[in-house]
């Protein structure tokens, strides 16, 4: 109950966005089973939201350390390309997955070393890979969209277990596992302490250097999974467009989810709800049938409203207003009594 209250702003926002979707498209909540798979717009939201949701998990931890990872979109492109070229040259799906995850891990280690050992500001450190990453992906795919027909890899993107599409299972599983690891151990608290004051945490015995590399590695791994799903979904690795601008969606989802960009306290569940809010907006816009010129304007307007409602300034104003009303109430009651 208490935890539900904590996510009240996010859940309310999600409910309102879903309600808006229902208003523009009455069949929004209809779910059926087609081809042995759950089928419906709500499933689309969960399914299409998978890459951003996965990116969000890593991004939340990075942001909690007062960092930011701009490279996740490009890492998605690299890992998708690695997975596609592995199956293209005869490797199986497990080989493809492990190499893609390894590539993501290496990218994460690179970012982590720049940030923690060389002390480069995260926004610059990860910008390097954001710019260079698509070039690396282009080299792997040789500039073309690398298509493949490996059933195993395609299953990762469009298969299903117990009628639930794979991408949904993957992001929910990753969300649960990472939440469990950081919240059932002291890891989450140590990460928060780095975000609040890195020097103080180091002095009190937290190995900030290793932990920083670790969170960027997690972010790289999440991006690798997202990239593999994105490539498997379209049965091809598109170095130019895979994960393009998704780093921004992921950061937005983390912020909408209630984690501050200033580091410190973080909430993975909030971020995942944030990812679903953003995907619901995207899907709703597609269903609404508005001309495409309005897409970005509508999205921006909704997000501005969400952020304004969640802004600390407005919330403290609201608390002030509520307190004043409560303070004014008793005299009014007395008047009635007399």
């Amino acid at each position: 109950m208490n935890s539900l209250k904590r996510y009240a702003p996010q859940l309310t926002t999600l409910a309102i966005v879903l309600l808006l979707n229902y208003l523009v498209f009455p069949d929004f909540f209809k779910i059926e089973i087609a081809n042995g798979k759950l089928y419906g717009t709500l499933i689309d939201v969960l399914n299409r939201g998978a890459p951003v949701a996965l990116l969000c998990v890593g991004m939340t931890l990075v942001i909690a350390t007062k960092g930011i990872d701009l490279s996740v979109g490009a890492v998605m492109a690299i890992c998708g390309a690695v997975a596609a070229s592995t199956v293209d040259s005869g490797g199986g799906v497990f080989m493809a997955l492990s190499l893609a995850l390894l590539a993501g891990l290496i990218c994460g280690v690179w970012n982590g070393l720049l940030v923690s050992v060389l002390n480069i500001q995260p926004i610059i450190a990860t910008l390097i890979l954001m710019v260079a990453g698509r070039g690396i992906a282009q080299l792997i795919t040789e500039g073309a969209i690398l298509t493949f027909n490996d059933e195993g890899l395609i299953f990762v993107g469009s298969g299903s277990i117990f009628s639930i599409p794979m991408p949904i299972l993957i992001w929910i599983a990753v969300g649960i596992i990472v939440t469990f690891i950081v919240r059932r151990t002291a890891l989450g608290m140590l990460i928060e302490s780095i975000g609040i004051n890195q020097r103080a945490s180091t002095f009190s015995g937290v190995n900030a250097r290793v932990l920083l590399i670790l969170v960027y590695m997690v972010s790289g791994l999440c991006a690798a999974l997202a990239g593999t799903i994105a490539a498997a979904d379209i049965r091809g690795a598109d170095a130019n467009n895979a994960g393009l601008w998704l780093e921004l969606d992921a950061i937005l989802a983390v912020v909408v989810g209630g984690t501050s960009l200033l580091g410190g306290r973080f909430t993975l569940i909030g971020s995942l709800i944030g990812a679903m809010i953003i995907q619901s907006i995207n899907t709703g816009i597609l269903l609404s049938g508005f001309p495409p010129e309005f897409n970005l304007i509508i999205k921006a307007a909704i997000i501005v409203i969400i952020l304004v409602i969640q802004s600390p300034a407005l919330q403290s104003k609201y608390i002030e207003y509520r307190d004043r009303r409560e303070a004014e109430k008793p005299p009014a009651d007395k008047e009635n009594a007399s």
Partner: protein
Amino acid sequence: MFLKKVLASAAVIATVALSTTSALALTVGFSQIGSESGWRAAETTITLQQAKDRGIDLKFADAQQKQENQIKALRSFIAQGVDAIFVAPVVATGWDSVLKEVKEAGIPVILLDRTIDSSDDLYLTAVTSDFIYEGSVAGKWLVDAVDGKECSVVELQGTTGSAPAIERKEGFEQGLAGSNVSIIRSQTADFTRTKGKEVMESFLKAEGGGKNICALYAHNDDMAVGAIQAIKEAGLKPGSDILVVSIDAVPDIFKAMMAGEANATVELTPNMAGPAFDALDAFLKDGTLPPKWIQSESRLYTKDDDLQAIYDQKKDLGY
């Protein structure tokens, strides 16, 4: 001893160099934008091929998407004294001064696949495709294919505001004029496969599981390839339940057409250099001035063509 060898080899190189220039081969400089897409890679391959077939010495400069590199390349072409310059301009503006320098050097310039905002006496001609025409070819094919029956089309647009998206939409609507075919939903999918699939999924859900959709028109093949997967996953047959027509003619759409999952594509030919070389030959031979705009061919491919042969021919062009 060593010095002698060096001198001897230098002499050999000098004679080779002299003999090539004395063969009176035409030298053409080609400033390409860079490798932004598969289509552009194919354009580069074909331009090099065309030059080789015609015995033309082509000097190739890759601008890596930067206009300043193109301007540098043009100046170095002037210094090298080339006979003509081909430019695929990365942007439309900012060409006046460098093109004036080229003009003063007496070198004809031909623009490939994009035009510029400068006055048209600064270049000989421009070889580009007509996006409106491409769209109308696709539209007319669909009108013929449904043969007078009513047909509701969903449209996947290119990147909002881009010239191909605006003009391919306009052309398609022109092609449909006066028929029973009408567009019921139109949304952008940014020319990409991922978005093509996502947007098609929403179209299918919004139109009664796809039952109300008779055809899909995509502004490029990549979006169509993504949409075809969405149609299949919704349990429908692309190519028969929903007709698929798109533009570009990249190799992957031929695979889909061979599998019966796509019906027609309009080619955006990567062979812009062929007509450019023809115009240049005529101009250098007897001064024939070409028209200021040469429209490249926009061919329609359907299942009646030898798809396998075209696929084999296209797959190694670098798409």
